[in-house]
């Protein structure tokens, strides 16, 4: 009986991979290596500040929700980088579809806002698919366990995109704090309205 359950789980896992559902909480996040706005490549598993984990955020220049969260993403990085959970921002959009999200425009934005975190371009759009990101901004909080980055929280930053001062639930902040305390984030999955990821193969 146990064996059947296990095989079923295995088949289910295969299917969810094949369907491109991306990661769920508990999955191991695979490595990626993407170009940062400073021209250097950054790979998750070799990123020194990611001592205890990483806060991977799919975000971009043009989306109003992403813009509304820019300052809060900066604050999150400032708060948790020194504690071993740095932000790694990834722009998943195809610049041919959204010129404001080109690598050059990313460099401009990073300079204007003095992003303290890397801002990478997912040029082949493989990384966002691997993660299963659906919108910008979309957060994947990773926790380092025995050298592996394990997905610990997926979702939104907080419960009020339009007004940082009216936030009641700081989902991401609470999730990182839980990990720092040796607990599991609760909730570990949230949703939010966001912009679609701009991909030529997006379902029409």
């Amino acid at each position, binding site marked *: 009986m146990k064996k059947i359950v296990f095989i079923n789980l295995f088949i289910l896992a295969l299917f969810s991979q094949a369907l491109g559902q991306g990661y769920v909480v508990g999955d191991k996040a695979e490595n990626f290596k993407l170009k940062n706005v400073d021209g250097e490549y950054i790979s998750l598993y070799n990123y020194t500040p990611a001592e205890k984990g990483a806060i991977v955020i799919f975000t971009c220049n043009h989306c*109003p929700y992403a813009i509304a969260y820019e300052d809060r993403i900066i604050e999150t990085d400032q708060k948790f980088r020194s504690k071993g959970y740095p932000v790694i921002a990834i722009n998943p959009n195809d610049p041919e579809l959204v010129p404001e999200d080109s690598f050059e425009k990313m460099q401009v934005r990073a300079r204007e806002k003095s992003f303290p975190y890397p801002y990478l371009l997912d040029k082949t759009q493989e990384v966002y698919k691997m993660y299963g990101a659906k919108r910008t901004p979309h957060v994947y909080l990773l926790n380092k366990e025995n050298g592996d980055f394990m997905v610990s929280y997926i979702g939104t930053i907080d419960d009020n995109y339009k007004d940082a001062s009216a936030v009641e639930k700081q989902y991401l902040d609470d999730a990182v704090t839980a990990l720092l305390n040796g607990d599991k984030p609760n909730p570990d999955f949230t949703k*939010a*309205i966001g912009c679609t990821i701009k991909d030529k193969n997006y379902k*029409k």
Partner: protein
Amino acid sequence: MYLKKNIKNMFLQPKRFILSFIFIAFSVSLSAQKYPVYNFETFTPMLGKQSDTTYVINFWATWCRPCVKEMPAFNNLQQEYKDNKIKIILVSLDFGNDLQSKIERFAQIHKIKSTIIILDDPDSNSWIDKVDSNWSGAIPATLIYNKNKRKFYEQSFTYEDLKSTVNQFIIK
């Protein structure tokens, strides 16, 4: 003291009083909101009407490019299906200043004839699943339903797609 004087004036100068009354009434009607604003609770009844009418509920925003791109499809649907039992509701998720005028301008430019409402409820994690549990939260997204059938589409529509999809719902 000033108020007393005003009240006294009111009776002494009835013409002026009436004029100022008209002025106040006029400015109140000007500031009235053209597009009704809902939170998720007040919006909920629109998601569960039990009738022959097919509801096409599109979640969009003026700045959302794929949403803007599919607007003509909803316009055509409104036009071509005006004799069918169909109701299109365009639910704007816009936020920021001058919301009403921003949407009004947009509606004029894109010649929108369908009903537009504003859903202003920033705690979207609390309500996305109540629209449909498969919705990731990305827009555009469209819910089509009537008393017999209900389906959610996290995608953009061409008019052809939209038409053939809606045809599966229409109750004659």
